[in-house]
């Protein structure tokens, strides 16, 4: 049974923490999420009981922590229905996306090849590809978004052509929260001989992910958005693609041998991409986080978030002074503005009431042209939020005025 009150007891940040003297309501889960005690304990335990490097020592402690590290890789793999050898542990989604754009994009793209994406992407999934285009002479093209900002299969089909070599996009975008039809898109991309890269930073924490069923070529995500530690994430890649692509970094742990003439023999994937001592405690905490949310169940998480969103939307959708940019999205991201109040001013007022939301262009700068506003406010929910929190948020939104926003400064 999904019991949100019981779940909340697992999170120190949800027990007694205040902001501006008010009980904290955290609605910025698209930025990062709170950690349950088991994740915190796992991280601490590495430092208090398990400290040793991985894959380096011929003693019990190192062996044990190496086992724990590989067990984490297995857990990550199972969570997205991949094989462990297809999972590269990285410092996060950004590192994973950069790795693909560099190691695959810069290596294989040719002048005139097309990189196809959307205007709703996070900077971490667009800037590495801008660079790949600059270096290789490839061209960037955008799939036009529908009027409401959603990516439709029809528009994708119309934008696909034989010059497209890579399709790269988020399966859930961080501004509008729409869910892209990834499985169908992957099929079409493959018919044209293109690969498909999925930025799963917002998708993996919120909906069940199955890379095998979707048949995607790469998928990147971060642990910290699914209750795990910061500084760790993963890149899934089909094994042949991982074999072909270059590492972003070279160094200890990624090579099998090298000699004084400069010959290097790299290890097999995923190890060839993991040079240097990783964030070991974070990798162990990543596993604890996946174990935690798996025990709750992704279906339950999805259903509850959807219920929360509907509950929130039903209360704010008719408010005259609120503009909602994604009324139809299915996920827990609600993007809006208060009429005649600059987003940052409104967010400061909301903050003064103990509620954390994000104002800005959410690292998706080109989308803002489409929404015809330079900035928005984003409330993003997770499975530990409650209807009571939403009630309080709605109350604050109902009462907000420009005068109140300015009064914060006195």
């Amino acid at each position, binding site marked *: 049974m999904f019991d949100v009150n019981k779940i909340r007891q697992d999170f120190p940040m949800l027990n007694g923490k205040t902001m501006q003297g008010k009980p904290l309501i955290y609605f910025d889960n698209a930025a990062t999420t709170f950690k349950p005690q088991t994740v915190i304990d796992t991280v601490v335990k590495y430092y208090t009981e398990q400290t040793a490097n991985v894959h380096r020592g011929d003693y019990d402690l190192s062996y044990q922590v190496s086992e724990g590290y590989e067990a984490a890789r297995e857990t990550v793999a199972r969570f997205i229905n991949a094989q462990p050898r297809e999972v590269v542990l990285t410092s996060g989604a950004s590192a994973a996306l950069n790795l693909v754009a560099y190691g695959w994009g810069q290596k294989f793209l040719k002048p005139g090849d097309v990189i196809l994406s959307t205007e709703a992407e996070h900077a971490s999934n667009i800037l590495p590809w801008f660079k790949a285009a600059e270096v290789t002479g490839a061209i960037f093209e955008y799939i036009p978004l529908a009027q409401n900002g959603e990516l439709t299969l029809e528009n994708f089909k119309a934008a696909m052509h034989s010059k497209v070599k890579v399709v790269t996009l988020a399966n859930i975008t961080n501004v509008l929260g729409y869910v892209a039809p990834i499985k169908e898109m992957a099929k079409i991309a493959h018919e044209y001989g293109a690969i498909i890269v999925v930025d799963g930073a917002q998708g993996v924490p919120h909906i069940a992910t199955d890379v095998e069923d979707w048949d995607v070529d790469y998928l990147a995500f971060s642990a910290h958005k699914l209750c795990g530690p910061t500084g760790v994430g993963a890149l899934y890649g089909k094994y042949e693609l991982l074999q072909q692509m270059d590492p972003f970094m070279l160094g200890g742990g990624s090579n099998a041998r090298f000699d004084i003439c400069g010959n290097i023999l790299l290890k097999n994937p995923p190890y060839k991409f993991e040079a240097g001592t990783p964030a070991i405690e974070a990798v162990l905490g990543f596993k604890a986080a996946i174990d935690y949310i798996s025990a709750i169940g992704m279906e339950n998480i999805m259903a509850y978030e959807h219920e929360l969103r509907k509950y929130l939307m039903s209360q704010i959708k008719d408010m005259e002074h609120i503009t909602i940019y994604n009324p139809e999205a299915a996920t827990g991201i609600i993007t809006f503005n208060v009429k005649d109040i600059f987003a940052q001013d409104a967010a400061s007022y909301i903050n003064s009431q103990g509620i954390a939301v994000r104002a*800005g262009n959410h690292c998706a700068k080109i989308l803002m042209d489409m929404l015809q506003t330079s900035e928005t406010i984003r409330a993003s929910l997770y499975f530990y939020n409650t209807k009571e929190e939403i009630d309080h948020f709605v109350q604050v939104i109902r009462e907000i005025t*420009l005068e109140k926003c300015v009064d914060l400064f006195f």
Partner: protein
Amino acid sequence: MDITDPMLLRQIIMDHYQYPRNKHAGDAHHNHMIHMASESCIDDIKVWATIENDKITDICFDGVACTISTASTSILTELLKGKSIEEARTLIDRYFDMIDLKNVDLEPLEEAIAFYQVGKQANRIKCATIGWNAMKQIIEESEGKHD
């Protein structure tokens, strides 16, 4: 000005936000321009100034900004227009001292006093200083400290 009267100070900010002064793009007679866009994701303003014979004869600004950025920059343009470089620098330093909650005489800052409590919302300090930082850079540039 009575800084114990929040109604009055709020009125100043609202007025400068809703009816910003000198808010328009500069033109050829402005010999300095600074684009302030990299401080945060949001505020994106340009400040133009004309500096002749060590005197600021004109300032204007334009762009997208929140209430605090808009009002503080609007107030800056009125306060510094017509001042000598030396006077402007003293006022700018005094303004930053006020923002840092240092104990300085606020009277010379005139309407800019409205921001004396901005430090209470620490994440908004950059909004209250964006135009002032721009002007500081322009003055340094005019003196050749910046290349």
